[in-house]
């Protein structure tokens, strides 16, 4: 069964995402809102990692071999300046979207298996991923004109 692989993928993606939020927050500490909210969101994602842990354990017993290139890479470093901020936020957006759609995929499988525990986790955590995406979209929309037109 490949669900165990996907639950594992989700677990890893969440950790990668939390790290990436912290990295971007610290890399752009001069933007106080970015710094603060990235850390608030990262703490929220830590909570998801914990909530998923017992499920990973449960499914882990039946784990198949993972296909190559399953996991998305995290961020190596952050950039600087207004355009750098924009790009880093876009990277976060990509990682968060991957998590979002992985929640969906896992949620679908949970439905098929009638795994209530997993469905509960998916339902509550997926909303938070949505919140991350909505903040990122908002912040990117706000930054883009100034960064692309007026910044030197």
């Amino acid at each position, binding site marked *: 069964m490949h669900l165990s692989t996907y639950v594992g993928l989700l677990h890893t993606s969440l950790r990668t995402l939390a790290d990436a939020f912290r990295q971007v927050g610290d890399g752009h500490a001069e933007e106080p809102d970015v710094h603060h909210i990235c850390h608030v969101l990262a703490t929220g994602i830590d909570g998801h990692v914990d909530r998923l842990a017992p499920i990973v354990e449960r499914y882990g017993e039946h784990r198949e071999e993972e296909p190559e290139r399953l996991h998305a890479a995290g961020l190596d470093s952050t950039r600087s300046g207004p355009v750098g901020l924009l790009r880093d936020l876009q990277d976060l957006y990509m990682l968060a979207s991957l998590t979002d759609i992985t929640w969906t995929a896992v949620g679908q499988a949970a439905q098929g298996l009638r795994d209530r525990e997993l469905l509960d986790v998916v339902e509550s955590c997926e909303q938070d991923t949505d*919140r991350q995406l909505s*903040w990122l979209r908002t912040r990117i929309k706000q930054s883009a004109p*100034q960064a692309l037109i007026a910044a030197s």
Partner: protein
Amino acid sequence: MAQQLVPGGGMPDRIADVWGTRTPHDRDTPWPVRVDTHLEEGVAEGDVDRWVRSACVLCSNGCACDIAVRDGRMVGIRGRAGDVVNHGRLGPKGLYGSWQWNGADRLTRPLVREGGRLVETGWDTAMDRIVERSRRLMEEIGPLSHGFYTSGQLFLEEYYALAVIGKAGLGTPHMDGNTRLCTATAAAALKETFGSDGQPGTYTDIDSCDAIFLYGHNMAETQTVLWARVLDRLYGPRPPVVVAVDPRRTRVTEAAGRTGGVHLAPLPGTNQALMNCLVREVIENGWVDREYVAAHTVGFEELAATVAPYTPERAAEICRVPAGDLRRAAEIFGTSDRVLSTVLQGFYQSHQATAASCQVNNLHLLRGQIGRPGGGVMQMNGQPTAQNTRECGADGDLPGFRNWNNPRHIDELARLWNVDPLTIPHWAPPTHAMQIWRYAEQGSIRFLWISATNPAVSLPELPRVRDILRREDLFVVVQDGFRTETSEYADVVLPAALWGEKQGTFTNADRTVHLSEKAVEPPGEARSDLDIFLDYARRMDLRDRDGGPLVPWSSPEEVFRAWQECSRGRPCDYTGLSYEKLRGDSGIHWPCNDQYPDGRDRLYADGIFPTDPDFCEAYGHDLLTGGDVTPERYRAARPDGRAHLKAAEYTPPPETTGEDHPYVLTTGRTVYHFHTRTKTGRSRRLRDAAPGPWAELSPGDAAALGVAEGDLVRIESPRGAVEVPARIGRGRDGVVFVPFHYGYWDTSGAAPDGRPRAANEMTLTEWDPVSKQPVFKVAAVRVTRLHTPGAPRPAAK
């Protein structure tokens, strides 16, 4: 009518007796009239040539008054007996501060920077420099190079003209006011909950309530006349119970004790945990008006789920207040017949500002306590004309509470102004003040026009602000009545007329509109802010789609009429008003139109809210992050005239105490001064009443630090420090209070010369994710005793 005048031309000293003589009254009876007057020494009533109608702009109460004029000079002031706001009263700032800047050290000619110094010049030279720079940047970079930072002190007409110039003329989204520091959360919380800005209640609700909750609102010092109104209920039969949320002991919290209410003193930064607990208790104890909630709100289930974990015990631990007090406060809210809530800076300038303020709205919705006499919510302002900045769009919002995210609203404005809709910046929310300063810091905003405000004292983290103002590549225009800490960094300084020297209207925090007439000529070559903005538009040759002048107006009344058209059909409808009508007995509430020809005192009495997706001012935000709710999602929630019960969990504040900085700094006001003392510091009585800043320590902390009353102490955050005398008492352990009015113009000029005293040296560059209001009330500091300078200073009352 109880005249307060005493023989000899003076009134009782209102520095010592801030709220004046009591005129107690019973619930549901009108607040008695008491006319307060103050005339310059040696001037008797009979000497006054004329009394000119106005209203005081020194706090958001907006007390109606008449200005005494003699020989072309302002010589005194008198409250207007018949006015709905103050029933004749004035407070110390209105009496002693509002008209006394007559002449002395005013800016009378424009200044330009020559070889590093500001030198006097004529209007043409000054305006040419501005226009030349403005034009060049418009060509090279475009409108995103321009920022406008304005005030909560101008008149409606001035804000509207500026909004049209910025949005339809230049097309910049970078417009905001210092109202962002003050009233932005009030507006944000109203938009999130009710779908539009606009104060639901009226000050008259004080006359009818059974319980009054003040959340982070030291009304006794910030709105003295309104507090006199509360006191008159407290001294009358059937007084209301007072509940106060404030980390300090104040006159308000003392009243809570006297009336059998509660004083909750949460650790700064924990308001959201406290509010979640109060909401939870109201739900758990079945005090919810289920019918009202079902018919008039959306979001109950989510709210209930979010607050469920905030038991009194858990909130008590986070906020460090007794759990029993939280239960008692919730019970008062849940069981009183008519509850009035007021909210101010203790919430607005703190962590999770909008979320906590929305919880106040939620409490009222849960009990159906809105829109009826005595049952209402007041999301206050500190700045008097802040309401107009918000309505007219000088704070970046779109005029008439229009929604930047709704293309139909943009089209309406484009038609009204006869410009291409694409000119009007609406791709994202308007740039908030702190972001404007950040863009200036990064060099992408290169032209910053500051009018009637003093950011070099009022913004957080002053060392940073001074660095930005000093930047070579930033062209700074400062328009004000006096030289200020900020003007010293300007490239061009424009002398502006002040209150009493120009005509215009303004609206106070409870939507009451007053006309302020011109009483005297401005000094020297000073001009009204409106004339200055219109002159800039003419010189920039700003035109509409057909090549006509974009701003064809020349008088305040013409701008007022244009604004009325802009407000037509919107929640803040002014179409039923006119200068003539405002010359009647009393101020008039908006909306004032065909449906409400005499104005509407309370909004939402019918339980219908402006949340319709085609009408609302905003689609709202996630309260935790500020992420926008999309139009699609907003529509899907089908609010259709129902209010939103919004929720958010508590998160710890961005800066917490630690070993290096073990105390929480909280900043705030003193009764005698208005903001940066630009005006009030120039009134002898007000200056003498509170000439310098201080740091207030709790007795326990003072003892632990070995600090005695009057000792000089150094308060230091990771960003900066002040050195001020200590006062002991009033605060809670672990919290230091420093008033924020003080800068350097009356000591050394623009910056500290070794003895810093501006509270904002220490505050954080952090803001609420939704309202973008800076967090002035939470910073980590350490305290060191310096020495005992001579005799101890007496503590203030």
